């Protein structure tokens, strides 16, 4: 049980007959797929692919769980996660003290998911979509309020969800998926 080298021989170009045969073979394969096509194209705005659970999409903050440890900002490889300090009123004592929370810069975020993985309280989580675009750069620096809301997901309203399954015969196949969830 170990890798071993294996010298193989290359099929060489043969006579004219082989050439004709090769061309015919290619045409027959083409014809085969013409008669039995394997279509799995996503008709994008009318359909959108429902991404599986655990997909590393946009990152959202659950402020209630955040303990202000700043681990997410420290581990962020592209310095997209920043900490801001805001005054928070303590419900028990009524005193106001400064607390720090993460905000995110989607101009830089690389969706590596380190911040989600490092968060000791699971205050950060991924939402399984990724197809959000912007016309202005400034919209992409999310303040604390935006960071707690999922981004406006226009696609979902436009189309119907589909998911892709791996099929033995057809490779990927497209099947309708139920909304939400």
């Amino acid at each position, binding site marked *: *049980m*170990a*890798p*071993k*080298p*294996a*010298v*193989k*021989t*290359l*099929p*060489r*170009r043969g006579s004219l007959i*082989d*050439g004709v045969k*090769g*061309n015919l*073979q*290619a045409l*027959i*394969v*083409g014809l*085969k*797929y013409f008669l039995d096509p*394997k279509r*799995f194209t996503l008709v994008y705005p009318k359909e959108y692919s429902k991404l*599986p659970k*655990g*997909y*590393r999409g946009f990152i959202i903050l659950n402020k209630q769980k955040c303990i202000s*440890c700043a*681990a997410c900002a*420290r*581990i962020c*490889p*592209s310095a997209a996660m920043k900490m801001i300090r805001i005054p928070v009123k303590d419900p028990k004592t009524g005193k106001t003290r400064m607390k720090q929370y993460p905000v995110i810069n989607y101009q830089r975020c*690389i*969706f*590596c*998911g*380190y911040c989600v*993985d*490092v*968060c*000791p*309280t*699971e205050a950060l989580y*991924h939402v399984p979509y990724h197809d959000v675009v912007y016309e202005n750069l400034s919209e992409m620096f999310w303040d604390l309020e935006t960071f707690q809301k999922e981004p406006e997901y226009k696609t979902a309203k436009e189309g119907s969800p589909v998911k*892709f399954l*791996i*099929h*033995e*015969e*057809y*490779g*990927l196949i497209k099947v309708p998926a139920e909304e939400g969830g």
Partner: protein
Amino acid sequence: MSGDIRFYGAFKDELGLKTIPSRRIAKDTYEIFIGPQHPGSGHMRIIIKVDGDVIVEAEPDIGYVHRTMEKLGEIRGWIKPIPLFERMAIHDACNITLPYVRAVEKLMGVEAPERAKYLRVLLCEINRIAAHLYGFAIFGIFLGHSTMYMWAMGDREVWIELAQELTGARLTHSYPVPGGVRRDIHDEYPDMVRRAIRYMRKRLEDYRKLFLDNPVIKSRLEGVGVISKKQVVELGIVGPNARGSGVAYDVRLADPYEVYDQLDFEIPVFEEGDALARTYVRVEEIKQSMNILEQVVDWLEKHKGEPIIHESVSSKYGPVHKKVLQEQRRAKLLPLHATMKVPAGRAIGRGETARGEVIYYVESDGGLNPYRVRIVTPSARNAIAFKYALPGHKVMDLPAIYGSLDYFPPESDR
């Protein structure tokens, strides 16, 4: 300089394949600049000097995607460079980051648990297949064979879907971390892999009929861009390009890492050294990768529930971490990962990516950052092939040679 390598004009190879005879350089050669905006994917420029339509001199002008990986690797701590180095070859992400992780592990003196090793190999081989298919797609574009582009791109999605299921990202997985991996597979995963393998095996047969055995393709590739065995050793060309010239050099064979020495597979080698041989090596490698995947998923099914991250990390897990590991099969990182220190020392991490050997020389002075990370990627080593393989060929052969070398500029320029 060794005698067999001629700098200008064509070389007569040892195998007696058809090549254009060497000719004297005429005085009235002129230069053609190819790239960086050109029909293929490569974001590089090749400056060729032509005499008539025969290339007499080629000068690869690379560096269009130089993103200063080595410098940034010196200031980003130990774990942040993993996503960073991944950007060199994002469609081959696990293969390109694993050697760095292994070098760091070596310095730290930890070793990943067995299951993590198998999971790494699983993703590595999925990546290798996807990367080869991507190479075929681009090769198809180079040759004007758009069916191949569509087919390979479509079939690559199968493997990308598998990788996404495992890691949560299509390409940039950032999957291995020092001490283990970030996620475990779910129960249906092995069957998904097996289905994909069965599909791909059938599909490769169609590839052969449509592309590889196609007389048009063969006549464009056969005897084109021949690199002899001696030249491979002399120029330091690696990966499928070396194995297409009869050099059985593969890191999985020469210096086995992870669990490759426990798996049964072949390293395909072809002797011819032309563009067709290099293409065939990749096809055979896809087959072998699928053999590896079968063995790996069998093992993973038998050894469910084993740890996927090293004790030194998992022993510090709190209740939330343990719950996530159990329910979502996700090994969380610890805050100490951001500020970890690695004992002083030097290590070389190496691995076989889809394009060949990648080497990380990692030097630590015991601090928060690596002192020096030197990266030599396979494309960086293959870039020199353009200079010595192109002369002697016609300009029309350039896309075929370029495509067959499977050169990826972001990887080369670092």
